[in-house]
Each structure stands twice: as C-alpha cells, then as structure tokens.
C-alpha cells in the first residue's frame, strides 16, 4: 500500500509523524508491503495513494502552504472518491473544511471553523462507531461546526471537542476523516489505526500484540477522566 504524508515539514508541529510511523509499521507487521511518500512544497500528489495523511502546523506554516493545498484540493477529493482514505488531525482537519473565519479551506469536509475566545486544551476521550473509545490531546483555538454533509467522528466523553458546546468531536464524510485529537493519536489507539488501514486496503487485518499500545490507551483514558474542564 502507499501512504502519502502531506507536507510533513510544515504540517507536523506536535509529533504528527507518529501517525504515519504507526500506520506503516502496523501494516508491515502484517506482511503488507508499504511505501511512504512525503509530499513537500512544489511536489504533486501521487495518483496511487491508498491513504493520505495531513497533520497540523503553526499558523504561519499553514498560511504558507494554503495556496498549494487549495490547488491540490480537487486531486485529494478525486483520490477519496476513488477509495483512498484521507485522514487529518488538528490544523489539517480545520483546513479540510470550507473556511476558518474568512480564510477559505479545501472544502472537502462540510464544516467551518471560527476563532474562539479561549484555547481548548487537555487530555480528551471520545466514543466512536469506527473504533470504539479514542483517547488523545486537544489543543486548538478554533470552534468547528459540522454541516449536514459531515457526521461527527465521535461524541466527547471527556474534554471539549469540536466547539465545546455540541458534544461532537471530529468529522467523517465518505472516506475523509478528521479529528482535533492532535499529534500522534494513532499509536495510543491501535483500533483506530487498524480501522483506517482496513478501510484503505479494503481487507480485514489479523490481530497483533497491542499490550503496550493498550497500556498507553488506558493511561490516556485515566488522564482524560481527571481533566477538570
């Protein structure tokens, strides 16, 4: 399978590459041949991607890359329509929406984001249909609201989620999935990683040893429950 990592240099503020490492290793441990292509500034999107990953960057980095990403949006959309999985976290998730305040996004997810008064920050957990409980760390100033075309990835069980008011977290629309649980969300949520892999290659995956991953998952759940706001 081919994993494409969009702009790891600019969109990777919080260890986002952990997701790509996690997906690639978990596929390899099952004997699947994996290549990882990094798309940097000036590159074109490979047309044989099975999974496209996009992380979050600093404001200035996202501004820098926005024109190129916007131009690439139709090709990302075509890849998803052809069956590729598009997975984005944090800033990348916001970019997939129609806009952040007045700044246009890629328009691939039916959602928009507005700047909030404070920062949503801390350990969080959500309940999802795709992968059960997912734990992570949220750290964003935006408030994201889903339109009718997108479904939430999950319901917040601890933390504040998309906007701190409606209990939703993340979004799914066809093969495009986004979440505010930022940075390396997949290594602590092996079921989520495997769900994405299985969707990307359209095959069931055999179980592997997840003792360490689940210990980190449980720890994350404990931390999320302890969070005060």
């Amino acid at each position, binding site marked *: 399978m081919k994993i494409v990592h969009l702009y790891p240099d600019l969109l990777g*503020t919080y260890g986002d590459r952990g997701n790509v490492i996690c997906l690639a290793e978990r596929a390899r441990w099952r004997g699947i041949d994996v290549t990882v292509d990094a798309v940097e500034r000036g590159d074109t999107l490979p047309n044989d991607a099975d999974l496209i990953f996009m992380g979050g960057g600093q404001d200035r980095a996202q501004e820098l890359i926005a024109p190129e990403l916007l131009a690439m949006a139709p090709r990302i959309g075509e890849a998803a329509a052809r069956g590729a999985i598009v997975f984005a976290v944090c800033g990348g998730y916001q970019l997939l929406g129609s806009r952040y305040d007045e700044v246009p996004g890629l328009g691939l997810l039916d959602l928009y984001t507005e700047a909030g008064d404070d920062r949503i920050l801390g350990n969080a957990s959500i309940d999802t249909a795709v992968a059960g409980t997912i734990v992570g760390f949220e750290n964003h100033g935006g408030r994201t609201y889903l339109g009718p075309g997108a479904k939430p990835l999950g319901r917040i069980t601890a933390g504040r989620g998309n906007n701190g008011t409606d209990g939703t977290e993340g979004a799914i629309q066809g093969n495009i999935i986004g979440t505010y649980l930022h940075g390396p969300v997949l290594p602590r949520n092996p079921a989520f990683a495997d769900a994405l892999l299985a969707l990307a290659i359209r095959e069931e995956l055999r179980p592997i040893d997840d003792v360490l991953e689940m210990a980190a998952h449980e720890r994350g759940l404990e931390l999320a429950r302890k969070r005060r706001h």
Partner: protein
Amino acid sequence: MSLRQIVAARTGRLVGAASRLTGFGAGEAVTGKLAHAIDPTLLSALASRVPEGFVVVMGTNGKTSTAAMLTRVLNAQRRNVVTNATGANLVGGVVGALIKHPHAEIGILEVDEAAARSIVPTLEPRVMIWTNVLRDQLDRYFETDIVIRHLENAAVSVRGSLVVNADDPGLVGAAERSGKPVVYYGLTHARDEGSALAADSANCPRCGAPLRYDARYLGHLGRYACDGCGWKRPEPDVAVEPVELRGAQRITVRVCEVDVTLQTGGLGAAYNVGATVAAARQLGIDEHATAKALEGMTAVFGRGETIGNGVLLLMKNPAGGNEGVMQVLEDGYSRILVAINDRHADGLDVSWLWDVEFERLKTTARYVVVSGDRAQDMAVRLKYAGIAVDVIEPDIKRALDLVRAEPFAFLATYTAMLDARASLKGKSERLA
C-alpha cells in the same frame, strides 16, 4: 527603598527561609513571589540598586547553562554577581534573587519568554542574549512564532546590544527587525547528520521561501540561505569551532583561536560558549579571560552531569531529545533509562516524543527501562522505533535501581530529572 518595599522584602525573605527549611520549593522564588505580591514596585527598586545593570538570557534551550557560564566569567573577574541560578526565571525568581544579593554589582538573569513582559522593561538590560527558539511545551507557549514575538517585544527595552545565535534563522530575522545593534555567534561546523525533525523556522523570515541548508546541526539550527531573495545566515562575530564535539561528558571548542574544554556534552554547550564569549566582550572582558574562566567547567543540572554510574541528559523538547539521543549514541551506552513526566513544568502533552529520533538508538540499546508518569507512552514510542523495552517501571526510584549497577544513560523530562537526582544523590552520599 520605601518602608513598604523593605517590609515586602523582609516578609518574603522569612517565608522563603521557612520554605527552604521545610523543603518546599526553592526558597528564593518563594521569597520573591511573596515580596512581589506585597509590593509590585519592588522589582524596580531592587534593580536600580545594581550599578552595572543587567544581562538577560532568553531562548528555549541553554538559558540556565549560559547564565551559569557568564556568571563564572564575571566571578573570575571578582565581580559581585546576582543570578537566578536555580532556573527560577519568572518574576518571583528574579525578585527573590535580587533580595538575596543586595550588594551585587551586576545581574545575569535568565528570563522566561512568557514572563519577560513583566520583568525586562524594568531591567532595561545592557545585553540581551538569545540562545534559540525551539519547539517546547506547546501547551504553554502554543507556537514558536509567538515566542519569537515575545523576544522582539523584550528587545525594545534593551539599552545596549543583542547577542544572537546566527545559526537560528528565526532569531536572526527577529534581531534584524529589532533595529538594535546585534552581535552574532555561531558554529563553524558540527555533526552533519543532525536531526531535521521539529525544524520550526525553516522558512525565510524575509520572503517566506523554504530555506536551503548546506548543513543542519539540530532542528532548524545550521548553515542556511534563501534562494528566493538571497537572504542568508550572517557571518558570526564570534565563531565557535568544534574541536572535539562528541558524547555527553566532554567537549573542546576553539573560539577566536583559544581552546576551551568543558566537562559537559552536546552542541548546546558549544553554542553557550559562543554566547558567553560574545556577551563577555560587550562587558569589556576579552576571549582569553573568558576561555580561562570557562576551562574545565562541569555540567549544570542534567546536562551531561554524571552521578554514580549515570550520565544525566535533560530532555525538555524535541531538540533537546534529539541532542541527548546523539550523545547516548556517540558514547555507546547500551543501558538506557528514559523517564517521561507530564507535570506542569514538563508540559502536559507528550506528543513531542514522536519528534525525537529514538530510532537512532536501535544499534546501541541492549537493556532499556522506561519510567515516569507517561512510561506507557514512552514504551509505545520505542516499540515503533524498533527498540525492545525490557521493563516498564513508572516509579523512578525503582527504575533507577534496575539500571544503576553499571554505566547507564538517563534521558528525562524536567521533573523526572529532579526526582532522579534527589534519589541518586541521596544514595551516592550515603555510600561515600
């Protein structure tokens, strides 16, 4: 000083002494915090009593070490120096240090970027050192761009010069915008295989184009140029040439044709020597005197410090972690203990562990223990780096007991390092 200021200072001092006795926190910072709360004008009154003014050290990594180096140089000149040596770099720590040293002639103060606004304008520093701006505790500072803005704002009240790391393009951009006189220091070369991860300022501060690197030492630190507009790394006024720069316990650098050997490791130490030589010059001290004072200096808190069989490497952020990993690799340690906490001083978010290239330790690691509040996350990180974890022991004391019989490398976040040092020092003193 007004009566209120005297009362504030005295009350603070009493509480600070009590806090030292009872073992709660560093006394100075407690003294200062309380005194500042009683009278917020105290900082200004105390600062005005320091006749030769202040050197302020700011930046992500290397503040404590650089301040310690410059203090050592001034002490060798028999100057009475006030410094916040315990790393107490918020307003309380600064006020506390000034209360404790009423007869100081000059101040060398490290100042937290986010706290600078309430400290630096009062100090009107004669020299301000910028070490680097690296990704650090993003749950607290959010973005390195914001930190750079804090530095630029702090520069406004500098009366003399900025001393700036020429190898950090983000800092150079900010220094140019400040309009202040700038003295640059930088490395002539370094290991070339440095990690390119967590490179935050890899874009030209003038035109935004990606910078081209001829050499990359660590993160975005290196020798860079912009093909877009021709902007490039300024030639350093103080060039540091690494003579021996490997491992965690010893480096030799040549600065202005003078050699300095330190009993500490890492690229960071080499940079700190450059910053110290450049700042000392601004204070009228030449490089020969500076080099002589620095010769043989040992590591400060967790920067290649050795206690018993352990070499201690503080890992606060990806850059520090990648530097620590390189030192462990160069020294060939096969026993490795990594301790990760997520308390306030460490940062609540441990995502950055994935920006440290632990993969590099695959060839050397033979016995690996992970510890701390987030031992489980660290174990996962190592698993995906292809490194087998032998034991997960969240309790740091017990984890140390597993490794300490033979030489080992200890990589740890700030509070994990505090815990480990207390435990190791206790044991080695009892044995002695």
